[in-house]
């Protein structure tokens, strides 16, 4: 039975067309996955169903939800539907809850707003909803505040609010994007279970083809506000027709070609590194405690090698990065590049630091918006005792920009004139300009759309071959690590729990945590992956 029917939906926001002729449908008990890159309009499609659109939005077409013509309804009527017939779960659990109200109040509110019932009854049913999302009362009483819960737990509270009245349709907008892989897997399992138990429809928005392939009965692929292709998951994955769908599939599981082979000499040697942070003192006169972020870590990176470092948030990978870069001193152990320590006598060693550079995750936050590209790219020259000036500096800038596929003329522009992918190329140019031996890629492709990510990965592989670079590739995304690294380290709670050849670790993980991570990582079916590699 068709629950949600969207017909030729178009949406303009203040005159800018956002959606054009979008049609899709969701049946009761069915999971429909909508996939697309940024700007595809997938989230706006979801918000159109809820009619929670930004000011100045104009919808046309038809949205029909279990007999209600959504676009014709009054705001009052829509309020009665929201939370009752159709509910929504959002991307960012950390900010989705009111910080000043208890989780019990917030779940009970869904019930109280729609039904005339007693506060006591609402509380009881809120407790039941929380139990259904696996937050039992003995460990998560109604009186908890959001700040006392982790991101995954908060997302469960948001889901509890959404399903408290057993709506017919649930919309989930990138519900697991902000979460770690293992938490993601748990939340996805939970959503699947709720769909089965309640027979509700689920419209799931995602940028991750593997997540959707695993969950959905039906897939809709969107691009620039239009549906390019849709169909039942199994047939669609194996018989894509549209060139964009095929490109998206190929990019989702892209493996760059690499030629260079790592040498046997170690470049970076990390031995027994410990990094402690002080924690706030307990009680008024208590001693400040310490938190051990990195706990006895040892590994080598060989010259010319691509080493992966995977782990979930809070495992200590960022702390380790800062220690390697010589930004913070370690409490114990040694870090040495080509035998020279990163820190000598409590001072960072400039001679070592000029041989390492870094590329960060966020293409928007990595650059001072008030400087031109030339100045941004040349910043690492500060590490040289005798940096090039004048024409030599311009030549170096042009060279770095050209080697990442940009043009020398881009040096005179400001950073806001570039797209996310281009910015990440500029970040790589900045890292390259002093010809370092080691580049640390700290989640460097995580914020990019899959097609852009594939291009940047190709660029990185190409640069590594051309300049004999060594990479330390830090990521939470296992599929990316698998595609580009020779060896991989798995980090958990400050320790390296497993390390080895990438293919060996992925094919035959030894440590329990590694097994858990690999099992949790969403992956396209093998035959579909094979298809992807053919394109």
């Amino acid at each position, binding site marked *: 039975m068709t629950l949600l029917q969207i017909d030729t939906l178009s949406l303009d926001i203040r005159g800018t067309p956002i959606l054009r002729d979008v049609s899709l449908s969701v049946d009761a008990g069915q999971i429909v996955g909508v996939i697309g890159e940024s700007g595809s309009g997938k989230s706006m499609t979801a918000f159109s169903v*809820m009619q*929670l659109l930004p000011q100045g939005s104009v919808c046309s077409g038809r949205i029909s939800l279990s007999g209600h013509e959504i676009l014709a309804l009054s*705001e*009052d009527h829509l*309020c*009665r*539907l*929201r*939370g*009752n017939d159709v*509910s*929504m779960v*959002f991307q*960012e659990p950390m*900010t*989705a*809850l*009111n*910080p*000043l*109200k208890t989780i019990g109040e917030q779940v009970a*509110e*869904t019930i109280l*707003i*729609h039904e005339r019932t007693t506060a006591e009854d609402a509380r009881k049913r809120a407790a039941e909803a929380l139990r259904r999302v696996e937050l039992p009362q003995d460990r998560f009483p109604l009186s908890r*505040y959001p*700040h*006392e819960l982790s991101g995954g737990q908060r997302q469960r509270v*948001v889901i509890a*609010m*959404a399903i408290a009245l057993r709506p017919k349709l649930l919309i989930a907008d990138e519900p697991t994007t902000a979460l770690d892989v293992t938490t993601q897997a748990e939340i996805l399992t939970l959503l699947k279970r709720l769909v089965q138990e309640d027979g509700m429809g689920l419209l799931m928005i995602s940028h991750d083809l593997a997540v959707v392939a695993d969950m959905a009965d039906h897939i809709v692929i969107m691009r620039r506000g239009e549906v390019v292709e849709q169909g039942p998951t199994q047939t669609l994955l194996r018989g894509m027709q549209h060139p964009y769908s095929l490109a998206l599939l190929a990019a989702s599981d892209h493996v760059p070609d690499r030629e260079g082979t790592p040498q046997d000499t170690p470049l970076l040697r990390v031995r027994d590194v410990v990094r402690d942070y002080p924690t706030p003192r307990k*009680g*008024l006169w208590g001693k400040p405690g310490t938190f051990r972020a990195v706990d006895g870590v040892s590994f080598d990176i060989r010259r010319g090698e691509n080493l992966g470092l995977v782990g979930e948030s809070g495992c200590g990978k960022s702390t380790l990065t800062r220690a390697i870069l010589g930004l913070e001193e370690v409490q114990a152990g040694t870090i040495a590049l080509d035998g020279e320590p990163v820190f000598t006598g409590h001072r960072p060693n400039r001679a070592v630091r000029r041989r390492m550079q870094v590329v960060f995750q966020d293409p928007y936050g990595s650059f001072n918006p008030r400087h031109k590209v030339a100045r941004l790219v040349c910043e690492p020259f500060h590490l040289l005792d005798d940096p090039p000036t004048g024409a030599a500096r311009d030549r170096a800038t042009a060279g770095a920009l050209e080697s990442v596929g940009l043009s020398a003329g881009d040096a005179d522009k400001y950073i806001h004139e570039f797209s996310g992918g281009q910015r990440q190329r500029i970040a790589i140019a900045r890292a390259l300009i002093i010809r370092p031996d080691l580049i640390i890629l700290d989640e460097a492709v995580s914020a990019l759309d899959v097609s852009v990510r594939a291009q940047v990965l190709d660029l990185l592989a190409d640069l590594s071959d051309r300049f004999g670079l060594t990479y330390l590739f830090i990521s939470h995304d296992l599929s990316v690590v698998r595609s580009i690294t020779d060896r991989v380290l798995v980090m958990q709670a400050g320790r390296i729990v497993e390390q080895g050849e990438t293919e060996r670790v992925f094919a035959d993980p030894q440590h329990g945590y590694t097994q858990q991570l690999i099992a949790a990582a969403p992956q396209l079916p093998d035959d579909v992956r094979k298809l992807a590699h053919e394109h």
Partner: protein
Amino acid sequence: MLRFALKRLMSLVVTLWVASLVIFLSLEVVPGDPAAFMLGLNAQEDTLAALRDELGLNKGPVERYTDWVGGMLVGDFGTSYTYRTPVSRMILDRVQVSLPLALYALTLSTLIAFPAGIWAAARRGKPTDIVVMGITQLGVAIPNFWFAMLMVLVFAINLRWFNAGGFAGWDAGFFPAMKSLTLPAIALALPQASILARVMRSSLLDTLNEDFIRTARAKGLSRRQALWRHALRNALIPVLTIIGLQFAFLLAGAIIIENVFFLPGLGRLVFQAISARDLIVVESVVMLLVFAVVLVNFLVDLAYAAVDPRLRGRR
């Protein structure tokens, strides 16, 4: 919660201690001998010496500082050089005017600002919002003592609804006393209410853009319900800060308004003391006002913790 309060209390004590040092040291460097000033040019050397002794001016600075602070702790603010009466008595008389005036003004300003700010935020961009914001823009720019003079001109001189100045005294009864504070309180409250309304509005608008408001709307709350149930309390935190700061301004700013209305408050006491070089009075009144400011900010910090569970710490 207790830990938070204790920590704030400790920093309050430290601030007060440093403030007392600053006040004492700055007035210590003042040239001139209060005793000579009091007795005039023709004073005998031995009467001068006796007066210095009586005022404690012969003691060393450390001893005088400890005497002053120690005295204040037990409510003894010393003796006025000019009036020869206990400063604490003089202050007590004046506080009976200044404190009710500040509270009256704060109440008025809050009563005006909250509805105005909420109303404007709820109707963002509509005519109501534009008119309310236009009025507050004027209210922020108006010098309060000038506004007070205009009110005197209209309501006291022309319409004769109020007296142009003076204080009826609490002995005359509550309402006559409050009536004589009404024009001053309005003059003090108008600019503060305008600022507060603007802060309220912008804080509410910021909060209305938060993710959790969208969550609330997805649950089926109307725009209005989301504003009242979820946005308002969250928007209150910056508003509380401003209320705290405003109380300080109302106490100190009242000094100017007291001059317009000839009110016998702390402000006029300070001015008389300055012109008579009665430094012990200046010292003590300034210290008292600083104490009031610091105390109010401490209370505001406690109010934060009452509003925001994150500050109460994990259980």
